[in-house]
């Protein structure tokens, strides 16, 4: 195991790292969603189809991303 990896594992017991990871994952999920929705719209997906894929209503996707 590399020193860097080892130190990261040790650090993962640090709640500051775990909590920061949660925040970063949430932000990552939002940014990946935004990118995927944009692509789906470019490729002609309806708001309904995007909502189905995300497990949310058509209205909520449209309210968030519709311009």
């Amino acid at each position, binding site marked *: 195991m590399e020193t860097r990896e080892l130190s990261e594992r040790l*650090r*993962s017991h640090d709640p500051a*790292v775990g909590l*920061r*990871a949660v*925040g970063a994952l949430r932000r*990552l999920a939002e*940014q990946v969603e*935004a990118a*995927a929705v944009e692509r789906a719209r470019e490729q002609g997906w309806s708001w309904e189809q995007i909502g189905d894929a995300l497990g949310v209503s058509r209205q909520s996707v449209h309210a968030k991303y519709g311009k």
Partner: protein
Amino acid sequence: MFEQFAAGARAAVASAVDEAALRGDRRIGTEHLLLGVLHEPGAVRALGAGLDSARAALDDLDRTALAAVGVDAQGVERAPLPVSRKRAPFTSGARAVLPRALVETRRAGSRRIAPEHLLLALLDCERPDPVAEVMTRLGTDRAAVRAHLRRTES
């Protein structure tokens, strides 16, 4: 509270709000206040680190945290988040900085809060406050920065 802010400090807080939105953060934290303050040249001189390196330090903390839970997000396509109509609230840590900045202002004998006073208050934040982690990552010598700021304000 904000009526006691000089123009520079007002601009710094407005920039902090922008920095949080840019990152997709839902709250304005001490780390965003630091980024906001670093939009002011005087603060950059005092800290010895600019906006870009502070942003990079914050990204680096995120990358390390993600790696600790086994996630490598490098090369993943991301898009900026849609602009939220809701105003992002301040974290409790960020709220606590404002009265401390006011104390620094009084100590300096000034009437209004300047970006330097915000920076002095941020320098006093301890771990686990995010700004303390960013400053550690930047290699900030807090005592030296504090001394520099106190010297230049008198």
